[in-house]
């Protein structure tokens, strides 16, 4: 009987295989499919969701594009890459199989690097949103990106640490196996050392939740500043434990920490926390302030979207970037004059766009040419961001 059931299972399997062969094909017809390759769970889930919100908001504003007199509807296909480099290729494969013409993403460099070849082989262009590691675009014809890069960000932060805190010794804490974290730590170290400082470097294993030993190490090393470019998940633990241990030196981090998770964790403590980011909510440019106003209204009108934003209407920099990435994609499709991946890929390098985060134009590598970063700090009394400076590198 068991044997028969086993055989039936096989029969079912082959039947399903055949059924699956009917295969879906590309967006086709008069829709263009834009894939959204973002984490909505795992370490970077909170940030990835905010990035998706920016894209969805942009999609709610512009959901058709006109090519050669014909109106195409734009459809989003969103997959979750689970912030994990081993899940990323199969998530990317889902987008490729789904027939996406163009892909946006991701938050976090590791998953972008891991999935890059899947898109590359399928000839699908990708616009990276907040993946800051140089490896994402380096040597990849099909990968573009609209944010600044880690060598730049690391230098900016090192400069800030020296200028603002007159730091001589920095304690760098990065996460093992995370390209973003290790990479940014490395660039910060290079820049900080070239400014005459010394660094103490340590890594923590994934799934680690005890940071007290690391913080003690930082204190023992007489560090003037702690640089911890980590995911928000680790960040909230670091902040909590730094608070419990009465750490006095400032905590410095990269773009990932620009999240309301950090505000929640730091509220009521007496820590000094500063981050570099892509966009500031208090932006006074016309495009920026309009985006902030409309985006907040949109969040407040959609309770489930607001929940994805962490239950508040603070505008994250990655939402603004997500918005820009989507709008840029529309520009590229228009420039290509076709929904075809190959045509879009050809049109992308020449596409320029003035977005809410500034002017976007690509260099030979496919990276956006950016030379300023915003520095924000946490106002721990009322749990809000406070604008510090616009920092650039000489």
């Amino acid at each position: 009987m068991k044997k028969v059931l086993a055989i039936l299972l096989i029969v079912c399997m082959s039947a399903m295989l055949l059924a699956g062969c009917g295969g879906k094909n590309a967006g086709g017809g008069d829709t263009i499919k834009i894939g959204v390759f973002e984490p909505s769970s795992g370490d970077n889930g909170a940030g990835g969701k905010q990035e998706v919100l920016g894209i969805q908001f942009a999609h709610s504003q512009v959901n058709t594009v006109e090519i050669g007199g014909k109106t195409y509807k734009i459809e989003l296909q969103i997959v979750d890459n689970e912030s994990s480099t081993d899940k990323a290729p199969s998530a990317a494969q889902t987008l490729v199989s789904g027939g996406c013409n163009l892909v946006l993403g991701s938050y976090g460099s590791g998953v972008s690097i891991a999935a890059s070849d899947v898109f590359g082989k399928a000839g699908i262009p990708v616009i990276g949103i907040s993946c800051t590691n140089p490896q994402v675009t380096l040597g990849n014809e099909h990968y573009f990106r609209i944010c600044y890069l880690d060598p730049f960000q690391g230098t900016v932060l090192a400069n800030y640490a020296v200028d603002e805190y007159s730091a001589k010794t920095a304690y760098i804490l990065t996460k093992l196996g995370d390209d973003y974290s290790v990479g940014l730590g490395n660039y910060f170290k290079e820049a900080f050392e070239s400014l005459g400082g010394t660094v103490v470097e340590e890594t923590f294993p994934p799934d680690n939740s005890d940071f007290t030993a690391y913080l003690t190490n930082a204190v023992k090393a007489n560090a003037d500043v702690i640089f911890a470019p980590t995911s928000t998940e680790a960040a909230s633990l670091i902040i909590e434990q730094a608070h419990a241990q009465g750490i006095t030196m400032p905590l410095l981090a990269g773009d990932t920490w620009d999240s309301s998770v950090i505000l929640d964790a730091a509220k009521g403590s007496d820590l000094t926390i500063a981050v570099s980011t892509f966009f500031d909510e208090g932006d006074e440019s016309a495009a920026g302030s309009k985006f902030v106003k409309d985006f907040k209204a949109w969040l407040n009108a959609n309770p489930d979207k607001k929940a994805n934003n962490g239950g508040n209407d603070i505008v994250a920099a990655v939402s603004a970037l997500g918005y820009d990435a989507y709008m840029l994609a529309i520009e590229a499709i228009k420039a290509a004059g076709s929904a075809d991946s190959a045509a879009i890929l050809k049109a992308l390098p020449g596409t320029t766009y003035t977005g809410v985060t500034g002017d976007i134009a690509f260099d030979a590598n496919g990276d956006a040419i950016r030379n300023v970063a915003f520095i924000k700090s946490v106002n721990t009394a009322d749990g809000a961001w406070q604008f510090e400076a616009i920092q650039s590198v000489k």
Partner: protein
Amino acid sequence: MDKLQKRKKLIITAAALAALFIILWVLEQILPANAMLFVVLKKGAIYALVAVSMNLLNGFTGLFSLGQAGFMLIGAYTYAIFTIPLEYHDSVYQYFNGGIIKFTVPVFAALIMAGAAAAIFAYLIGLPVLRLKSDYLAIATLGFAEIIRAFFQWDALGPVTNGSNLLRQYPSFTSVLFPFAVAGVCILLIVLLINSSYGRAFKAIRDDEIAAEAMGINLAKHKQLSFTISSFFAGVGGALLAMYQTTVQANAFKSAMTYEILLIVVIGGLGSVSGSVLSSFLFIAASEWWLRFLDADTYIGAFKVPLLASGFRKVVFSVIIMIVVLFYRNGIMGDKELSAETFGGIRRFLRKRLGRRKEEVTK
């Protein structure tokens, strides 16, 4: 079984395999290259190899080892390190000045090196730990897998392993025939081993160590042999997985991966090679493909189907696994093998059923 029948069986098996490859080839010609089917077939073939190698250890030799992910990791890294083309070294090893390995080897040589590296490690690890019994062995091998993972992420080894950063840009495969061919040859070798006198000794050890020893089987030698060979194929499987993923990072080879493979082995049936193969494909297809629809919000008209949301797929999947585990405690194949006879059996069974129904109708 007389010789003639044996030969007939052999011919049928060979023909079935040939037919399988032809079907795959035809499918590749007629379907779009990025169909989900191929994803499942590729990953399924790789997992089948790893599952069979684990089955050799757990199901045929009775050694409860949980080190599979560690050996896969060694295989994957060995393959990647020795095949990354030199022109990409600077960009891959960007933090380590292009790495210190300044040569590459051909893909097939690298696959064998991957297996060999895993086997050497296994041999060394086996010396102390194979003396341990059942659960102690399991936890010790699990521990070794974790230690290996930490070593591969160690910064000091960065010029070789690229530290905790991804390895990529190494040659990979596009056709589904490649993993099928490599995994197929490896599984065939394992089957030959199982049917040899060594294989009979393994089974004797599994059934009763003390009796086996009394019959003159050298326990230490055979356990060591089984452990090393199993790890060799796990290493090859790891290399194939690296090729499939196009990037490799030590972090992915956690104990969760070993548990996953153990699940496949037990669901397929401990001590059944075809069971392991079958359940690998089922497992991968269910987890990657068939249940995907459960993850997306679905509307029927204006009605939003409740419960469906990201992650629901996995909940359903784990419930299915629990059901299989609770109600098919020997796995789908038990310790039987799928063969021409099974198909003969099902044909007879169906004929009997249908025949009976016909009789009822004519009555």
